[in-house]
């Protein structure tokens, strides 16, 4: 389902970004939805307690307008303005998108401005129809670049943006490169980075294949031993 977005540049070295599909998008949305619901609820609880404590309901009866202005309205604003405000401030990201490893970009790969981000959010009114973002979800499933109506209107799309920022810090050593060559050293590093995410049998098989190129690997080596041997290769 995931396609790519090619970003041409004047140097002739192009970059391809992976377009996030309905799964990646929904994952980010669900995280964001939880955050905004929790933040709005937190406001209601905190301000509700400061307003009338456990007797907030009684306070509501006594002064409904104050209760609405101080408790309900800010919570509603937090919920409604979460996406537009954070997307503008975080340049196409939100906490949920960051956790899901996706970000909003323009069709040329650039960071979208305030206008496109606001238009994108305005069309949530259509995308959320008739319930549970059905129009938006169907649109992401049917369109080539997996975009919802708001993205079509704003000229934006969601791409994966989950590169490891520490890649330069633990780059392969000279000895590691001399032993394995840069390509295989990088393969080993990639495997070690993904070690916790992979199933034990899958990572053991991959580790064996890499280690066997350097020499025989005894049978029955455990998970930790295989990992240790891989780490030794890079040192």
């Amino acid at each position, binding site marked *: 389902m995931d396609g790519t977005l090619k970003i041409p540049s004047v140097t002739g070295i192009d970059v391809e970004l992976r377009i996030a599909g309905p799964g990646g998008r929904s994952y980010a949305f669900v995280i964001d939805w939880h955050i905004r619901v929790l933040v709005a609820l937190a406001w209601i609880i905190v301000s509700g307690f400061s307003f009338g404590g456990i007797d907030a309901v009684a306070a509501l009866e006594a002064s409904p307008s104050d209760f609405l202005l101080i408790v309900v309205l800010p919570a509603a604003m937090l919920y409604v303005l979460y996406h537009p405000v954070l997307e503008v401030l975080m340049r196409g990201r939100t906490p949920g998108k960051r956790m899901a490893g996706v970000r909003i970009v323009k069709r040329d790969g650039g960071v979208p401005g305030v206008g*496109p981000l*606001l238009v994108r959010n305005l069309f949530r009114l259509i995308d959320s129809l008739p319930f549970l973002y059905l129009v938006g979800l169907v649109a992401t499933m049917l369109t080539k670049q997996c975009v919802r109506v708001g993205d*079509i209107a*704003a*000229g934006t799309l969601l791409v994966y943006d989950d*590169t490891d920022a520490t890649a330069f810090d633990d780059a392969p050593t000279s000895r590691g*490169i001399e032993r394995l060559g840069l390509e295989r050293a990088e393969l080993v590093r990639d495997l070690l980075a993904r070690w916790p995410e992979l199933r034990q049998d899958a990572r053991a098989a991959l580790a064996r294949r890499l280690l066997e190129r350097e020499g025989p690997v005894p049978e029955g080596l455990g998970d930790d031993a295989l990992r240790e041997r891989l780490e030794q290769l890079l040192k």
Partner: protein
Amino acid sequence: MVDKTSRWLEDRLPVWRDVAVRLDAVERGRAAAPEDVVKVISAYPEIARDLAIARREAPRGPLTRRLEQIYLELHRSIFRSPGDWRRDLARLFVSDAAEIAQSLRWHIVWVTALFFASASAGAWLINQYPELVGLFASEAMIEQVQSGRLWTEGLLNVAPSSLLAVQIFTNNISVSLFALVVGIFYGLGTAYIIGLNGMLLGAVFSYTAQHGLAERLFEFVAAHGFVELSVIMVAGACGVSLGEALARPGRETRVQAFQCASLRAGKLMVVCCAFLVGAGLIEGYISPDPAYSLALRLSIGLGYLAVFVIVLSGALGRLPRRAE
């Protein structure tokens, strides 16, 4: 070869780390240091070359992916348009909104015509068949009018002005934005919203007139109604322009035309929403307060409308567009 690669990596790693740090400073800082900017710009071709080598030596490895990310960030940073949100906002109110409104003038005329035609139809309908007023007004409203009082009277006893204003402008902004976005249904959604609102207004005025309350209703809406209705007309025009972009995209593709129309409409709606906030404040603080005379209300309403027309007519002049 391996030795060469190893030396290359040893040489380049500090440069990449330095570029990453400076790029971060340039992107995050309000005023980036000139040396950081110069370094970042000069690093662009260097990183491009390094990326080409990294792709050959270790395609899809973590180093290559990180280099791709830095290269892309450099590309975005160097080739993006210069941003100054204060100037952009000022230009939006001074010249951009007027330009867009001018380009939509016929849409505004047609939507206004539709609104008044619907209002006339609503008024005629209730004039002929008063029992149909239940289609347009709630039972409580009807009962109040029948007892010789407007539902707007004593509003301040129910809610304070601050709450009224917030509720009103939130509701008006929602209606306007909804009228805009439903234009995606080839303009029919917008036509429906405008027609419905027109009929509602005509029917309510006609019904209050039958009970001798039309003047008092006019008195209530005089201060805020002109701008409120004008904004709804403009929002409707924007919605119709979305529909037109989809139905008659011209030389562009449908998607391009729709995108262009949406972004233009979005800009204009920012200005309109600001005016709706003002109209909401007037409706919350001035309209329900019997202390204000009709003359004063009319002065406020027409004065505010004049400001709205001045902004959308381009009478404020033009702010130069920045060089792309």
